[in-house]
């Protein structure tokens, strides 16, 4: 520390001792940022718990696995169902003990450890002022002319990219390799994460981008821009859910339980749509904001549970990789 007096001073100043109990919540970077749902949730929870909620951000699961039992986290929020198997096997998490019958997910959910707090569906977003005839099925997308330009995310580095290969696998099964071969010429490029893809799409670099059915809501509500739509496919859309869990080794079990219960409250849930830009996991549709109620949603929701996802993952990624490497 001696080598960094300036920074050390800064750190000491920011970590001054606090009397009130502290609930440490690990979250992905977007969640805790000023533009994510984190700050609103923090204020609302602190108002009822008389505690100090502190977010620690970073790569959620890798960081927890690195820290192991030594972790300071009381609660971790922001997991994705496609990778919870590894998280569960670590033994770091404890059952939440909550009644989850009030969940409003479009799929069956009975997990006693990982608690959903929002969901959406993987979907391709397009500009409806440029693409006047929407594609109504995955088949139609595969058969579309090759000058339709798509940008997607890499399943090896991005959770939405992983969802796409599982989606393809769910729709086309053994035939996914052929499906990928048909899709490949339309794929302009593959990016490391969602942000790069979406930036390229809004810059006009692609006609469609892999994102979520809830993405248009942001443009409609925050920007008053109705030109972005999600193409709804009749084969169904892959389900994306974000989860929270309590750490087994928490030394703030009461606060952690309170927070887990808070997730299911209307106060928490009603903050989700316009800060996380996704569907709340436990809130009836009537209580959604206007822009969300009108969003087109798929009739069929496709989903692999964590065991299926873990078993299929390598095969699904390989189908993608070999088709796009041609």
């Amino acid at each position, binding site marked *: 520390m001696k080598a960094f007096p300036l920074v050390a001073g800064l750190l000491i100043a920011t970590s001054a001792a606090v009397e009130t109990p502290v609930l440490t919540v690990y979250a992905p970077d977007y969640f805790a940022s000023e533009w994510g749902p*984190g700050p609103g949730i923090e204020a609302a929870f602190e108002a009822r718990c008389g505690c100090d909620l502190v977010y620690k951000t970073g790569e959620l699961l890798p960081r927890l696995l690195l820290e192991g039992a030594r972790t300071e986290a009381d609660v971790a929020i922001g997991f994705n169902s496609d990778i919870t198997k590894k998280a569960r096997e670590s033994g770091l998490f404890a059952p939440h003990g909550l009644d989850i019958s009030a969940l409003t997910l479009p799929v069956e959910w009975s997990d006693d450890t990982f608690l959903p707090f929002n969901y959406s569906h993987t979907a391709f977003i397009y500009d409806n002022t440029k693409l006047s005839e929407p594609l109504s099925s995955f088949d139609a997308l595969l058969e579309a002319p090759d000058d339709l*330009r798509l940008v997607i995310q890499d399943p090896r580095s991005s959770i939405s990219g992983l969802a796409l290969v599982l989606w393809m696998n769910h729709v086309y099964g053994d035939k996914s390799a052929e499906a990928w071969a048909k899709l490949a010429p339309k*794929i302009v490029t593959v990016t490391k994460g969602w942000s790069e893809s979406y930036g390229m799409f809004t810059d006009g670099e692609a006609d469609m981008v892999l994102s979520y059915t809830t993405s248009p809501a942001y443009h409609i509500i925050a920007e008053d821009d109705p030109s972005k739509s999600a193409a709804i496919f009749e084969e169904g859309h892959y389900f994306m859910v974000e989860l929270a869990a309590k750490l087994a080794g928490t030394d703030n079990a009461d606060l952690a339980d309170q927070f887990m219960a808070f997730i299911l409250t209307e106060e928490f849930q009603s903050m989700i749509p316009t800060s996380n830009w996704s569907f709340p996991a436990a809130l009836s549709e009537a209580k959604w904001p206007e822009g969300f109620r009108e969003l087109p949603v798929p009739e069929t929701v496709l989903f692999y549970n964590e065991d299926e996802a873990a078993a299929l993952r390598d095969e699904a990624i390989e189908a993608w990789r070999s088709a796009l490497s041609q």
Partner: protein
Amino acid sequence: MAQRALPIGAALLVAGMVILPVTAVFWRGGGPGTLGPADWAALRFTLWQAALSAALSTALAIPVARALSRRRFPGRSGLVALMGAPFILPVIVAILGLLAVFGGNGLINRIGAPLGLPRLDIYGYHGVILAHVFFNLPLAVRLILQGWLSIPAERFRLAASLDAPVWRVLERPMLRRVCPGAFGVIFVICLGSFAVALTLGGGPRATTVELAIYQAFRFDFDLGKAATLAVLQLCLGLGAGALALRLAPREGFGTGLDRLTDRWDGRGRLPRVIDALWILLAAAFLLAPLGAVALSGLPGLPALPAEVWSAAARSLALALGATALTLALALPLLSAPGEVAALLGISVSGLVLGTGYFLLLQPLIRPAEVALPVTMLVNALMALPFVIRILRPGLEAARADYGRLAAALGLTGWRLWRIVYLPRLRRPLGFAAGLTAALSMGDLGVITLFADGDTATLPLQVYRLMGSYQMEAARAAALLLLALSLGLFWGFDRGGRANAAI
């Protein structure tokens, strides 16, 4: 001998700072992981693109640096500074800037389409190479330009008086000395490429070793494999470094007395036109994407959220700290073993390095508390090879010219540095400091692993904004980042050149 002990000790220290964290990751991962055919394919692609990118960047830099070294025109120094900017740009900003010019909907296609020109498709191997040349041409130009400026004016005078071919007697030997080092450094940088290669490569064909590391770390949590791949990177980087050092001949030029370099060659009309063309082409290639970034960032600038400004202040402090640390590490390392040790730092994945430090520090201290210092250290390790590459020729020249005089006068240790070497190195020191500051300013790096809400840096804030649909604010923040990086670079570089001894 005591004089050799310091460089060797410093080299071992730096090597340790790299090897220790990698070992920690290995140990935690339970030994080496197994590599599949996809990993070997990634390795082949990584090597191929790095070699080609480095060769092209170096080759193209030669005529550009030559033109810049022998032409005086208004705004020349400003242009030289600005042309350095791509090298210090955060990857995501650079990609968007490149696409605004070369993309499907970019400037070139928008101009070309009405003229009936075939559509330019940037995605593919050529896109990767184009992006890497965009990033690294500025570095190559600066390194080679420095070589040109290090040829004393007297030599040009002598060559002119003898009507000797300047290229053969002065320039080619200089290039033989400078180019292998430039190639080596750029090769090693391109080894670590990930997001650029993937995005512009158009898909998994352009998979690099760094992406395999990221996958192993993030999804598989296979630390053994991540560390194995990192060691592979390390060996490649060291191999390239050792080769570059071997290829570079030892001899240098003596200094003349300090006068402005006047040239007597290249005075005809044709050489002038060719030089002007090279400068224009390079400037357009490097500056157009920057202009696009600036233009798209302007609208959001007035409404930038306060968090962006505080992140900017944090990034500035981080950059200055990293600069001081880098120079402190670099000065005792200005030797061949030092240069090899320093190459370790850039060869190895920042992700693995950060994870290693996380593992090492965890038993002692909460990693989040040292997020900024660790980021600073990793930034310093990453910048070291450039700094050493930049400073070494100058130091060797100063040593050759004044070593005996200094020894005769009993100048040793810190006094020798203060009175002789530092003033002689002022110009490259300014450049090196500017480069380090700008690089750490733009580095996203390991902070993502450790950062908490209140330790976010400016590049991280750009990503956060993009991840929250705040594209306009993200572009404005990117512009701010670009301006600050350039400002730091320009300030240091300028400080080094103003009234500089050489």
